[in-house]
């Protein structure tokens, strides 16, 4: 049984029965297009009870971190100069479609890259906008009255990666740092990508006492396009005075992606100690 078959029934049951802005299910949640085929597809499914008007568009963006380690993805219409953008030569068919209740629609993605495109990986973001039927404003104004209400629209953004030639990836891990505050340990994991493709992996952090007892652990999916310095807040509760060790591993283990989508690379590790007084 594929993962798709396993999660879809549960996901459908989890989606509310009533919605004023029904999002569509977009699968897969990342698209990988090979230069040999120059084509890909996504499947949209409307689980709601009303038709949904869907618009598909391409943009550019990738995860970055700020000084506090928070990740954000800044979206733009086109790729900045120097970035390997695929936005300009990707097209979706159809770009606009109405999907009936509990119906599905395949969106084809076709690539028309330049003839002299060098080997490498090229990036884009695909936005699926879903708009339901006209939503009535709550409350009907009396004569001379004013009623106001805001309807909702939802958009889902997924990544698109176009790959040409043999690609490699990896990361280097600068010394990690850790600070204990409140009931968690904030762990910073400075990563810099190597190779020619995005590093898709999982960062794991654990906190152990001097006696080897695990006080807390957590993990986060990471996508390193150039560099990333994420913060993972490991919940540990109240720590007694003493020495503790934070261990970090970053590997290309990604259970949410199809095989070979996350290119393999050696696992990197680091650790750091801190003292609670």
């Amino acid at each position, binding site marked *: 049984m*594929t*993962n*798709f*078959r396993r999660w*879809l*029934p549960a*996901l459908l049951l989890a*989606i*509310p029965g009533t*919605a*004023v*802005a*029904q*999002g569509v*299910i*977009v*699968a*897969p*949640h*990342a698209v990988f297009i090979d230069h040999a085929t120059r084509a890909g*597809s996504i*499947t949209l499914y409307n689980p709601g009870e009303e038709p949904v008007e869907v618009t598909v568009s391409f943009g550019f963006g990738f*995860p970055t971190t700020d000084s506090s380690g*928070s*990740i954000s*993805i800044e*979206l733009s219409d086109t790729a900045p100069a120097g970035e390997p953008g695929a936005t300009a030569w990707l097209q979706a068919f159809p770009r606009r479609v109405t999907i009936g209740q509990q119906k*599905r629609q395949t969106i084809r993605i076709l690539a028309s890259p330049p003839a002299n495109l060098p080997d490498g990986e090229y990036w884009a973001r695909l*936005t699926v906008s879903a708009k*339901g039927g006209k*939503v009535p404003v*709550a*409350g009907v*104004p*009396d004569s001379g*009255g*004013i*009623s*106001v*209400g*805001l*309807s*909702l*629209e*939802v*958009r*889902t*953004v*997924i*990544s698109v990666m176009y790959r040409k030639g043999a690609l490699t990836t990896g990361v280097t891990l600068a010394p990690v740092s850790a600070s204990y505050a409140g009931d968690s340990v904030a762990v910073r994991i400075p990563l810099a990508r190597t190779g020619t493709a995005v590093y*898709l992996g999982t960062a794991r952090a654990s906190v152990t006492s001097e006696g080897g007892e695990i006080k807390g652990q957590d*993990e*986060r*999916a*990471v*996508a390193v396009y150039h560099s990333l310095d994420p913060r993972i807040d490991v919940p540990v509760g109240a720590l007694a005075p003493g020495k503790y060790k934070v261990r970090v591993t970053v590997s290309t283990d990604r*259970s*949410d*992606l*199809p095989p070979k989508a996350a290119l393999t690379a050696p696992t990197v590790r680091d650790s750091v100690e801190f003292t609670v007084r």
Partner: protein
Amino acid sequence: MAALLWHAPLSAQGRPLVPTGTQNLGFGNVIPGLSTQVLRSDPVGSGQFTLRGEKNAQVQLLFVLPASMSGPLGATIPLTFGASDGGFSAAEVITSQTVFDPRAPALGRLSNNGRASVFLGGTANPGPAQRSGSYTGTITLTVSYTGL
């Protein structure tokens, strides 16, 4: 359902991220010249979304918030959103929200069941001579996984 599953792409993995708007942000009937605020914790008036996706996944939330609502004959009502008008709840409980500023990108983490709710409040500011009628606008929520 059976047909859907039969034709599902075999290469698909992981849970897609699915946002759904479940309740409009509603101010009801307002009085000219009097600002009306709806709190994100208001179970009836707040805008509400649900998220479904990969368990424990971190997601980015990005709102597009209108500066005003449009009404009859081109009339508008200004809207304002404050730094504490956004709320995120992995437990999907309106009384247990983590506050965020909806005017800037925000992060949330889905529960270990891959679920969460997002709440939104705001303030409508009708003028003293506000034209009567219905006023509407659209709030857009864009979501994406941060790990891809």
